[in-house]
């Protein structure tokens, strides 16, 4: 596998993780939408969603920090 192919798959890897994370976030968003529509424990649902949503955003942030950080540090060599 040459360098270009490796880079392509690395971008695919980071994209997959990002899409997975966004899918979970949109699922949490949908649960909030249902809670609002049914007026079903809206406050509790919002509380859980804020905690869980922030966590997934933090995980996404860590992964991107690692990916781009290592890449930049490699180019600095």
């Amino acid at each position: 596998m040459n360098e270009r192919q490796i880079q392509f798959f690395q971008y695919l890897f980071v994209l997959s993780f990002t899409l997975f994370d966004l899918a979970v976030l949109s699922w949490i968003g949908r649960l909030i939408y249902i809670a609002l529509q049914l007026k079903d424990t809206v406050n509790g649902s919002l509380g859980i969603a804020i905690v869980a949503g922030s966590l997934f955003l933090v995980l996404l942030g860590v992964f991107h920090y690692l990916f781009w950080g290592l890449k930049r540090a490699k180019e600095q060599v």
Partner: protein
Amino acid sequence: MDRDFRHEADAVLMRPIFERPKYFYPLLGFLLSVIAWAAYCYYLQFNLGLGVTGMNQPVSWGFYVTNFVFFIGISHAGTLISAILRMTQAEWRRPITRIAEMITVAVLGIGGMNVLLDLGRIDRVANVFMYGRYQSPLLWDATSITAYMTASALYLFIPLIPDIAILRQHATGWRGGLYGVLSLGWRGTERQQKILNRCIGFMAVLVIPIAISVHTVVAFVFSMTLQPMWHSTIFGPYFVAGAIFSGLAGLIIVMAVLRWVFHLQDYLQPIHFNYLGLLLLVMSLFWFYFTCAEYLTAYFGNEPGEMRVFWSKMTGEYAGYFWLMVMCNFVLPLPLLVWRRFRQVTGTVIASLLISVGMWLERYIIIVPSMANPRGDLLEKGHYTASYVEWSLMAGCFALFVLIYLLFSRLFPLVSIWEAREGREKTLEIVAARVERYKLGEGRLKEEQ
């Protein structure tokens, strides 16, 4: 043909990756056969319905939910223990963190799968995603397990990067490509190491509350109901303590197997088993304390619904399981873990095997007796005996765990090579610098200087 790795200092860690072990195909065949049989049993269950299991009314939760709680509990071996050891800078952690982290990732998936096995209509699982409501603790579970799984996978992957880069130097063909992609351009520069350490440190802090919340939420699935002996405020911490307890036992067993199979005696030394044995002893005492608190409170309350469940465990239908659990979790491991003479590899492994059986029984007798003795005099008492379908699927779960571990061992080192190297080169320096910081009685002298 992969490039020669034998001249490397930690060649023994790379051997299972570059040299196929003799037992690989026979073991793979055996595991796949067990999994295929389990898949066939699931096919029967899917076609004929949950009637092929031992579950009935009112006992609608049996082996599958027991296994779900058990496997999620074992998952605490990894991330939580590894994170705590990293945060406390325990130098002896180095050879065991990866083994522990991998256990977490493998068993979390298997634990989650058991919930799906319990569904009569698996095709309706999409409804959880489409129409789920956060009013239900089951949704809390789905959310927290997904978060824990994601965080654990990331926490396993980040410290793997330098090792993948080492493997990249020796691998060719598809392996070379795979390692090239996953090493994310790692060259081991100072800046890269700094970024990596920052991420590992941050994740170690992050996964501890996630891990604790996961098992608390698993406990909430029970304690948020009004079933007798489930509606208890102590269930959250009781489950977390039990999870760490069973996780440690699982970790010791896996370490012993890997030590023997892959000849890792130089890495997984008796002192590691000794230290983990001490942690196991502490958790055994904690578990006993929580169990006493839980049962004594129920007994003193003397509420009729709870007492039916209580006596079914103490002297009734489930007494055998209950007392075997007490023997396995407390009475028998105690002498093995208290005396240093026994707290060696064999002693801790025997204690861990007993505890694994005991903790599985604990999950079983939390679930089944409460379901079999529902609150209210009008409801009939139930009985539960697991069918061969449930036993087969349980065997399939254990086979799947071994399979995942086997495949992982063929791709990645089970002991962190770079951390082992760092330990050899820098441990004395790191520890000396740390001790220097808190040398007793010298703080005042330093300030005066």
